[in-house]
């Protein structure tokens, strides 16, 4: 669970890095080149299967653990949950389920289109590239999509708030000095990743 989660965080960072290129004012050139690299590079292509595996492992383990946890308390309390805990840590399965539901829509919107759909081509430095950028920009001109993505990414942020430091703790990495740093890093990652992703549809819509 922890290892798959950490792997997915690293994927999000790469994904965000490439996505932010679309905001660069160069006629989508760098974004399209990066997207082309991601679809054609054999190493990235093989990593794609590892990534799928990571997703499936993380989701399945999450479901199995949650079922075991529910079974561990067949009768619930009348008044419960007043213990001091981090808020989002209590709702990982819920935020996870919401992220998963939107993920399917997201894959249909972009991933499957990029893989199997027809994409307009664009000439960059005399070579023909798939114009993934226009696909993204067209999508984010529609307000419902922008709102949907903002909500989705907020939930991703909530999920990430209890991700990095929790994974380290599960792996047995706890230290009186560095664990508070891991907590801070976890929150920073949540804000930066969710905030960075949210920036993209919002800025595209505004401009």
């Amino acid at each position: 669970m922890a290892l798959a989660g950490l792997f997915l965080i690293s994927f999000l960072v790469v994904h965000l890095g490439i996505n932010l290129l679309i905001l660069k004012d160069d006629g989508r050139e760098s974004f399209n080149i990066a997207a082309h690299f991601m679809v054609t590079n054999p190493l990235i292509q093989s990593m794609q299967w590892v990534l799928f595996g990571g997703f499936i492992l993380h989701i399945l383990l999450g479901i199995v653990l949650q079922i075991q946890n529910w079974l561990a308390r067949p009768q619930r309390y009348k008044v419960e949950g007043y213990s001091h805990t981090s808020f989002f840590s209590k709702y990982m399965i819920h935020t996870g389920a919401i992220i998963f539901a939107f993920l399917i829509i997201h894959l249909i919107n972009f991933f499957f289109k990029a893989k199997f759909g027809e994409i307009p081509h664009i000439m960059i430095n005399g070579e023909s590239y798939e114009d993934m950028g226009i696909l993204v920009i067209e999508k984010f001109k529609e307000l419902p999509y922008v709102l949907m993505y903002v909500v989705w990414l907020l939930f991703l942020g909530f999920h990430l708030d209890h991700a990095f430091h929790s994974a380290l703790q599960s792996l047995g990495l706890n230290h009186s000095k560095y664990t508070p740093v891991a907590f801070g890093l976890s929150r920073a990652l949540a804000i930066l990743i969710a905030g960075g992703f949210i920036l993209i549809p919002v800025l595209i819509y505004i401009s």
Partner: protein
Amino acid sequence: MNLTLKIWRQKNATSKGKFVTYKVNDISPNSSFLEMMDILNESIVLKGEDPVAFDHDCREGICGACSMYINGRPHGPDKAITTCQLHMRRFKDGETIVIEPWRARPFPVLKDLIVDRTSFDKIIQAGGYISINTGGIPDANAIPIPKTDADLSMDAASCIGCGACVAACKNASAMLFVSAKVSQFALLPQGKIEAAERVHNMVAEMDRLGFGNCTNTGACEAECPKEISISNIARMNREFLCSKIGAPKVKEESGGF
């Protein structure tokens, strides 16, 4: 103080329980929570009814017997105390207090607020000991132990096994308890010999008994009357991973020292 109490009443392990509302009047704010329960029980007995059954023993916060889930928190609203150390001045006059037993599948309710915590004993039996034949008391300084390790071990050993961690955890996980019992030995040279086998067996027993999994919410640490830290859980996870990765198994040999 006048209070309204909503208490879980359950005749025995097989019957279906329900909440019963009681009123208690003229309670001193300086009486302890269990004294308030005694006063309630006296009034119930005078009416010829069955008093509320609850676990208690030392009443000074060291035995780990008392176990009430009070207004959504094990051992009530105060930090780092057991129910017997809780005082009525922590409540407001006229307040309604909801009192429930620990809720977890491995802790079945026996009667009213008493739950069966034998599961914890079974986990200890699975490896929470050092299996050497001891003779006389060894010399205190025969094995030099760094002060920091000794302190950490002592902190872990202060666990009284009350089960508040399980009661507080949204997953009814026993990780804090088991990790405290693993840590108190793992930190000391005497305990290191069997460390790999111990953590493996105790975790296996914990899982077998049906406790939930740890999702690092930290509720256990917040409610532990002895303030056991979840850094112990990380230590147990480390020990567990190491035991899986290939620490040598300890073979039993005859004879002792």
